[in-house]
């Protein structure tokens, strides 16, 4: 891919940028989940790798979180945008060269940022831990070029309207830039106290609410109609989904700070917005489910549909938890416990990862015009990912309930630590399973690029999945 960095734009084969983004995302997924498995081992076995601060949990956790959010999830989004946006506009990507430079700069900047976090250079604010110059780099060299490429591709489309997926993509790249710039104000202007806390969580929540959640959902709007051949059930519900996310989910940040001395009216406001996430969530899930009418066999037979529908189904528990766990009545019990850790992984490792997985599987096969090297390995990846995630989520939810009970009923902290130890070991097993499944995926995709059966012109990879 690097040879295209200085090639003329018209000499670069269509889809090169998307392939670069796609493979980068898988590599980051392997790294990110590997770090996750390492961190889980530290929590399960306290004497695992001690004596070096670089491998201390505090350092490694930040590297894990940012490798997954900015490496895996965001680069998979970049891949989906480079591939789906032009396809839905019956056009080519506005600039393949910009796309390739963007992916290159993304990888460089992220590697640099993660190294700094690893050696301990951090802003110390959860989810926006990068130091200010890395934040600036992310805004200028990572977020803005992606936004320009997506917007210009939408503007130069050769269709009359804009399809649902592209509303979300175009809005997502616009919103994440704002979220990034506003959310890092405390970093740039040394804001302190409650202002800092509020803006930090405004950033942390809106990265999920205005970037990861809508863009991941947008992938399902493409893959399901495209692969099943069914038209999307309702254009109108898509509208409702889009506008209710943008309007209702703009400022739920204070629900992360329900125990902080923020104004109570702000907490009420945020809490209501948190519950209202159910409106877009139900719109989205029902729209996709109704689109599947008559094609449910593909949920079993087709890998991409299975990934997509699993992600969409996981949106149900995700939003049920997310909607209610932040209300005053429930938050006092689960706040600051493993329950929240389980919920965060339900969002990122459950819901969004399965949707991104669908986009990367479908996109890489279509753009490389090669059939998946091994469907068996693909199925193995799916099941290990799902089972590993389920073990993780279940064990951390139970551990969270134990911690919540310990917190409320004045159980000595050390007793809680002992009680949750088995669940910490289960979490490590689940996390390691996810890591291994991703190594399998990377191998499978690499072999697809090298040895996958060439897909004949005019056919789609999933149509010939079972042909030998």
């Amino acid at each position, binding site marked *: 891919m690097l040879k295209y960095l200085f090639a003329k734009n018209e000499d670069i084969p269509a889809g090169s940028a998307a392939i670069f983004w796609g493979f980068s995302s898988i590599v980051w997924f392997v790294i990110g989940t590997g770090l996750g498995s390492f961190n889980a081992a530290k929590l399960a076995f306290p004497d695992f790798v001690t004596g070096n601060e670089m491998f201390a949990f505090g350092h490694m956790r930040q590297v894990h979180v940012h490798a997954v959010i900015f490496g895996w999830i965001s680069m998979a989004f970049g891949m989906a945008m480079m591939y789906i946006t032009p396809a839905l506009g019956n056009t080519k990507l506005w600039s393949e060269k910009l796309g390739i430079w963007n992916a290159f700069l993304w990888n460089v900047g992220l590697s640099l940022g993660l190294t700094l976090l690893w050696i301990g250079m951090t802003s110390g604010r959860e989810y926006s831990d990068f130091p200010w110059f890395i934040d600036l780099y992310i805004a200028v060299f990572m977020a803005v070029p992606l936004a320009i490429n997506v917007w210009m591709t939408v503007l130069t489309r050769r269709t009359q309207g804009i399809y649902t997926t592209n509303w979300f993509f175009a809005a997502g790249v616009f919103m994440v830039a704002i979220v990034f710039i506003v959310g890092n104000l405390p970093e740039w202007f040394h804001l302190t106290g409650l202002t800092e806390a509020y803006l930090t969580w405004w950033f942390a929540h809106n990265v999920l609410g205005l970037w990861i959640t809508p863009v991941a959902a947008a992938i399902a709007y493409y893959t399901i109609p495209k692969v099943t051949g069914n038209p999307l059930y309702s*254009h109108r519900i898509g509208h409702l989904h889009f506008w209710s996310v943008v309007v209702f989910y703009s400022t739920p940040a204070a629900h992360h700070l329900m125990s902080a001395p923020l104004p109570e009216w702000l907490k009420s406001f945020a809490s209501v917005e948190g519950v*209202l996430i159910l*409106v877009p969530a139900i719109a989205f899930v029902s729209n996709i489910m109704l689109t599947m009418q008559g094609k449910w066999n593909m949920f079993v037979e087709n890998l991409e549909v299975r990934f997509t529908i699993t992600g969409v189904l996981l949106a149900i528990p995700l939003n049920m938890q997310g909607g209610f766990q932040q209300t005053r009545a429930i938050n006092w019990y689960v706040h600051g416990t493993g329950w929240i850790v389980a919920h965060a992984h339900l969002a990122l490792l459950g819901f969004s990862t399965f949707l991104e997985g669908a986009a990367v599987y479908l996109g890489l096969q279509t753009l490389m015009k090669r059939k998946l090297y091994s469907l068996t390995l693909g199925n193995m990846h799916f099941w290990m990912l799902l089972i590993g995630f389920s073990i993780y989520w279940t064990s951390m939810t139970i551990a969270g309930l134990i911690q919540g009970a310990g917190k409320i009923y004045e159980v000595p902290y050390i007793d809680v630590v002992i009680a949750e130890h088995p669940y910490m070991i289960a979490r490590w097993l689940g996390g390691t399973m996810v890591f291994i499944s991703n190594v399998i995926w990377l191998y499978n995709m690499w072999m697809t690029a090298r040895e996958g059966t060439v897909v004949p012109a005019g056919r789609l990879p999933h149509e010939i999945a079972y042909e030998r």
Partner: protein
Amino acid sequence: MSEKHDVTGVPTTGHVWDDSLADFANQPPKWWMLGLAASAIWVVVYWLYYPSVPVPSSNTFFKGIGGWTAIKEMDADKSEVDAVRGKYEAKLKNMTPAAILADSELTEYVKRSGKVLFGDNCAPCHGTNGVGAKDKDGLVAPILNDDDWLYGGQIDNIHTTISGGRQAVMVAHKDSLSAQQIDDVANYVKAMSDEGKDKADTDSAVAAGKKVFMESDCTSCHGADAKGMQAMGSANLTDKIWRFDGSLEGIKRTITYGVNSGDPKARIAIMPNFKEAGKLSDSEIKKLAVYVYKFGGGQPDLPVAPVQATVAQPAASAVTATK
């Protein structure tokens, strides 16, 4: 614009994207719209009940018709707890730890709240329920559920230890004794523990060590009988209970580098001052003293009444268990 879809008969929006992708012009299902309306009603009710809408010009906000505030809720929860605990806490305030011990109802109460205090403040070093916790250097802090005490096991001794902290010093002997002398005395100390002092004294194999023990500075803290002195927290060397590693190598290390001696390899044994740190209130320290006493190893105040002596007896069996 719109055209009928060939299978379902429902009109699509008329657009076709990416060669084959279309979308229907379906309206949202009725149940969905009802749900949307219901959630809108819920939002209004929630906002009316709780403090919700800011009024920027007057720098205030709508307080909600429920009159709810976080402080009120916390006070209500707290008074519920205080109603149960208040009468005991009021009594505790002006009682000595010994007086609490004499009151069986109060002791029962103190044991229960002591469990939480102990778990949060003491268990990291002393282990849950005082069974001891170990790291790579051995025991982090003394085992508390036996009847061997460095600073005394009477209720007032325990109370003093918790409120003031403890920090004994054993000097390093790496300069004052030769390597051979340290070897000898370590062998003697180990023999006293393994065989008992009487047998070790007559054992010719460790006679050299005994000579070092009696002639160097050992006796000034551990006493000529090697039984230690509780006033300064020096250990009893004649029993089988070891504060630090009781192997020959471990004993040599303790003698060579000392305890809290300032030497980088010294053993560290510091009990923090919980009162000065502001970590625990007077009542809480009293509770902990009673709680620790009640692990079973607490020793009755002198003079010993015959009945009380037998009470302490069962704890002695715990000693062998902690070897």
